């Protein structure tokens, strides 16, 4: 029974990691941008929920309704300006630019809000849980995050495969130039993809702020790494792979923590290294994605 609990808690954490990873996966899959500021953008979204939303007389639980659209817009503008300018130079430049962005965000947050931890306060809702039996408790909020993660990935999958804009996103990601000679303004399409990616990151950042505590450096040191690991384990370019990757990472961490709390992080990294060594394209990735 204890093991069942370990798995259940792992899966719940996994949903959370998957929500973080899907934006990273999309940005890399479509634009070949490795966004090192990914985690920091999530933290900024969390801070926005903490500091802006209370002024708007919106209950903090509904903060995401305000923050997510703002960040979709931020994503579009960021792509059309800074990231596109970096992409036009070379793919490696995007690495430097997003790294710089990460440093900038972390230090600005430290300067303005100090190093204190911040939480998005949703009151007593966070404490609610569902007791399955004597050992297994499922936190309502974590369950909600898992459901949201599955829903976001599902909607994204349908959007990419069934809508005309989704088709253009796939076309641009296959061959940017060929899409241009079909009449597609690839910069605009990139902007849409970035808007979606950053909106999901914002959702993940707010969830993180609700679940635990955000500090200015949370994004670079923890969030980014776990999101990367989830993407790599699942396989680049596969959204469902990202979900499975996140869940496996969560389960591995919980198993590690079960033996010794100090092994929680280590177990996740070991799974990640094992996948890199044995199946570098990830569980659901295609071999050619490595090329």
């Amino acid at each position, binding site marked *: 029974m204890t093991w069942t609990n370990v798995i259940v808690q792992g899966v719940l954490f996994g949903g959370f990691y998957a929500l973080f990873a899907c934006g990273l996966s999309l940005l890399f899959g479509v634009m070949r941008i490795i966004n090192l500021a990914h985690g920091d953008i999530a933290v900024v979204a969390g801070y926005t929920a903490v500091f802006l939303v209370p002024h708007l007389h919106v209950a903090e639980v509904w903060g995401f309704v305000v923050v997510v659209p703002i960040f979709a817009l931020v994503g579009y503008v960021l792509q059309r300006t800074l990231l596109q300018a970096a992409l036009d130079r070379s793919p490696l430049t995007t690495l430097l630019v997003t790294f710089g962005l990460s440093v900038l965000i972390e230090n600005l947050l430290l300067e303005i809000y100090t190093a204190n931890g911040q939480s998005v306060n949703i009151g007593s809702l966070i404490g609610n849980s569902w007791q399955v039996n004597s050992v297994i408790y499922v936190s309502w909020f974590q369950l909600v995050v898992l459901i949201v993660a599955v829903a976001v990935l599902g909607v994204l999958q349908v959007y990419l495969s069934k809508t005309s804009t989704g088709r253009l996103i796939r*076309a641009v990601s*296959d*061959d940017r130039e060929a899409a241009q*000679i*079909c009449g597609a303004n690839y910069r605009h399409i990139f902007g849409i993809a970035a808007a979606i990616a950053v909106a999901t990151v914002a959702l993940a950042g707010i969830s993180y702020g609700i679940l635990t505590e955000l500090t200015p450096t949370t994004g670079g040191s923890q969030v980014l790494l776990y999101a990367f690991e989830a993407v790599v384990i699942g396989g680049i370019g596969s959204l469902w792979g990202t979900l499975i990757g996140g869940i496996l990472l969560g389960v591995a961490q919980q198993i590690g923590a079960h033996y010794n709390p100090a092994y929680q992080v280590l177990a996740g990294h070991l799974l990640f290294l094992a996948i890199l060594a044995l199946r570098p394209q990830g569980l659901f990735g295609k071999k050619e994605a490595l090329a």
Partner: protein
Amino acid sequence: MSALLDVEGLVVHHGQLCAVDNVSFHVAEGEVLAVVGANGAGKSTLLRTIAGLHRPSAGVVRFAGADISRLGAHERVRRGISLVPEGRRLFRSLTLEENLLVGAHKALPGTFDIPAVYEIFPWMKERRRANVAQFSGGEQQAVAIGRALVANPRVLMLDEVSLGLAPIVIERIYEVIPAIVAQGVTVLLVEQDVSQGLKVANRVHGLLEGRTSLEGRPDELSARDIEEAYFGADLHHSPPGGRS
């Protein structure tokens, strides 16, 4: 009759290399112009510049009377310029029909839509849900032509459609061009395979090392003229071992 496409003094560089050097020509509406030349003569660069994928260092591209030199590639599609690029460049993770849908998403009004393309290439209808990555070279070339056609271009540019295809397949691809021209589409094609180019073209424009080496109608040009334009005029006169 005024020219539909008018290229004037076009110069295009790839870094230091001058790929197209002061080339001028025009294509009248309904005409088929073949640009011929050896590998590296600047033919593809010329078409890609007209399509908007390269910025010229000098010169002007006019289309239907308007200067389009500053327009992006996607905007030129809306004006009526479509390119079938070298190497086909299909969207490899998309199905045949999805490739055509992307081609048609900014289409001008006109005769070519997806059913019309299925009429030209009847095999496509059955395989429209298949992924294009598994198609043969000839099939992929047909999809690339279909993808450009569904945008209903006024000028269709074909870049080396015969490249890497078996002669029988090339013949089949070239068989559809008269049907396209019959619908009033102007065709600008680039070929290394001169005989194919000459068969369908009303006029020929030769390029040699980025410069115009020949202009004329296929029936007025001798094999010797074309050979010289293709390989260089002094080919027959230079002493052995003289010029490399």
